[in-house]
């Protein structure tokens, strides 16, 4: 047993750190570190910088233009990138549809789509959730009817994160309405410019436009844009979800946000003493930091098991639950740390270049919005209730 990284891994970490220090644009870093609004361009710009370095696909095999990094190297990269204030990689292309294409896609699909994912020239979104199919994904109703070499797709998708930017959507559709729910599903790649697609914004409680509804009305999708077999889409869908949950613990991000919390707690005072020296407040922060330490090791244990060529298993549910609880706990404390100024909700002041009158310390501006936004963590990606079902059934056999 050795909890230390190897000298090689430490050298790799240093290389990543040096690269980030040199290459991460200061304006992007500023936004990330301070919880401000990131634009589409910020994500694209950063992905292009990574791509130019050859690091566009940290989790991809070399065959497809990826880095070929080990799970530990990917972890180190993600941790350092988060600490440095790099934007989180938009997962829909890189981490969701790409692994499916690599595993189940045709060579033609791989050649057509993978390069532009790496280079951020095409933006992907998800077409899984539907208004009636959330936790119970297999109850989806969007229909695809084969007509010659096309499918005609009708239905509605929802919670489509950053769908307003998307060039392509990977989409679960029902191709056999007679079959059992999980049987008659197919996995299609849909060009968002196809006639019949309407993207409507869903505004969330922090005032953000991050998610969308996508309406599909007689949308023609070439059969060649189907992944794998017709009616076998559930297999690919589950494969994708399994991959989606790796790195979901978000240790790097949690560490960065905890550092933000401690930074602010050292600046705010209570009875003339830095808040971080207040016994009750310090105990609450300590509890979070301790839990995070434990989760980091738990995460490394799971990684270590994966490195031993085991697929991500139900342990990922542990990481999802604890990781999201911790990230939410940190944003809760961030609201507590700034006092009454945490009441403000000023999206205009969360955008880069805001020049208006100040309201409270700069750091207080996005705290409430960040808290509100993070409520989604325990809901999406398989709600934490679903994760507990998985633990009970898959780990405990109940």
């Amino acid at each position, binding site marked *: 047993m050795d909890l230390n990284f190897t000298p090689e891994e430490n050298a790799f970490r240093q290389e990543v750190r040096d690269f980030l220090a040199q290459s991460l644009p200061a304006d992007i870093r500023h936004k990330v570190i301070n919880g401000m609004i990131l634009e589409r361009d910020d994500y694209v710009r950063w992905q292009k910088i990574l791509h130019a370095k050859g690091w566009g696909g940290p989790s991809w095999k070399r065959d497809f233009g990826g880095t070929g990094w080990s799970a530990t190297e990917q972890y180190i990269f993600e941790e350092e990138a988060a600490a440095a204030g790099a934007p989180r990689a938009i997962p829909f292309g890189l981490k969701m549809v790409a692994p499916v294409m690599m595993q189940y896609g045709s060579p033609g699909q791989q050649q057509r789509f993978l390069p532009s994912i790496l280079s951020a020239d095409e933006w992907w979104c998800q077409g899984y959730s539907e208004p009636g199919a959330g936790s119970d994904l297999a109850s989806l109703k969007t229909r695809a009817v084969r007509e010659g070499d096309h499918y005609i797709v009708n239905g509605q998708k929802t919670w489509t994160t950053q769908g307003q930017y998307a060039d392509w959507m990977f989409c679960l559709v029902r191709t056999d309405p007679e079959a059992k729910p999980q049987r008659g599903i197919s996995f299609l790649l849909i060009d968002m410019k196809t006639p019949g697609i309407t993207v409507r914004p869903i505004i969330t*409680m922090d005032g953000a436009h991050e998610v969308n509804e996508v309406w599909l009305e007689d949308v023609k999708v070439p059969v060649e844009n189907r992944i794998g077999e017709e009616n076998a889409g559930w297999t690919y869908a589950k494969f994708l979800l399994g991959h989606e949950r790796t790195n979901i613990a978000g240790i790097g991000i949690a560490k960065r946000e905890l550092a933000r919390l401690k930074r602010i707690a050292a600046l705010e005072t*209570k009875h003339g003493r830095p808040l971080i020296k207040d016994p009750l407040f310090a105990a*609450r922060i300590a509890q979070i930091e301790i839990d995070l330490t434990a989760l980091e090791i738990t995460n490394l244990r799971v990684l270590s098991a994966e490195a031993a060529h085991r697929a991500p298993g139900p342990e990922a549910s542990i990481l999802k639950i604890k990781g999201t609880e911790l990230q939410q706990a940190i944003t809760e404390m961030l609201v507590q740390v700034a006092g*009454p100024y945490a*009441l403000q909700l000023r999206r205009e002041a969360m955008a880069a270049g805001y020049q208006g009158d100040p309201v*409270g310390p700069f750091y207080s501006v996005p705290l409430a919005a960040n808290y509100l936004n993070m409520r*989604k963590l*325990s*809901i999406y990606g398989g709600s934490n209730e679903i994760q507990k079902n998985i633990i009970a059934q898959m780990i405990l056999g109940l």
Partner: protein
Amino acid sequence: MDFGYTEEQQMLLDTTRRFVGKDYGFEARRRIRESAPEGFSREAWQSLADIGLLALNVPEAEGGLGGSAIDTMLVMNAIGEGLLLEPYLASAVLATRAIALLGSGEQGAELLPALAAGEKIATLAHDEPASRFDWRSIETRAWRVGSGYVITGHKSVVPHGGSADLLLVTARLAAVGEHGPMAVFAVPRELAGVKTVPFNTIDGTRAAEVWLNQAFLPESALLGNGGHEAGDAEGALEQIIQAGIAAVCAEAVGALDKLLAATVEYARNRKQFGQPIGKFQALQHRMADMVLHIEQARSMSFLAAVRCADADAAERRRALSAAKVVVGQACRFVGQQAVQLHGGMGVTDELDVSHYFKRLMAIELQFGSTDTHLEAYASQLA
């Protein structure tokens, strides 16, 4: 021991609920929030005046209803149910009580009828950037100059500070750095030397930063006209803040009830895996936990209303801090679980759920956070 309301109180509650039900549905509220420049409706405000609610905290001697804290509790219950955006708490509770408690007869006669009639709006401008949740710690200073006072300071997150005609500004009567007695000045928002910067808060209302830069005030602006002994206003201010705590506790209970009802309704109708999600035992138990929190919060809202007029200052502090803790914890738990149980819909602006959630979150932070009151209570344990 009596948990009932008098006939008049029941009428007051019914009247307020009727107003909320008729004129303040969720869509009406959305229109106000999205289009009214001040973030609330002057028309609704006038309606509140017309049905007499703005006179509730005005003493009978000034032509008001001279209502009790229980009466205010009932109105705030209904306001919480309807998530009213209007400055009822700011103007009709806090400012009105401040003037009634601290003002001279003349000041009361001049200001209170206008507040009761809805002709003027007032707000307490008390918190400051450095005060955090410690209401005693303020740095705004006023000192005598000729026939009046010069006042300088920075008041933060003043509710409806951009709309109020009158700011009730707290200051210490001393040079900067010295610790003088606390005083309250009635400051017209348009006065020279006063700058307000309004902004949106999480609960859909607007607050303002207020800077007072050597603003000159006539002697008559000092509530009580200087007749108070040193430190007098501090005791009164504590009581006003405690009335505010009781009021938001009641508002929270109204919002909590609605939020639970919405969640139960959603759980009955939303189907997943072939059955309503309300049939899943883990979610049933979560909702049972919401009930536990809400009933404890309701109890403490009663206690807060009853005790905020208590003559015993120590008992008052204990009760109000205890109430704020229980209610604040209910706000957190019930709010978060209501959102969670609504799934993705819970985080949207479209449903009322997120709006209740945000108002409850704001209540948690108003008049001192949960931990602030827990510590205040703990320091008095014996």
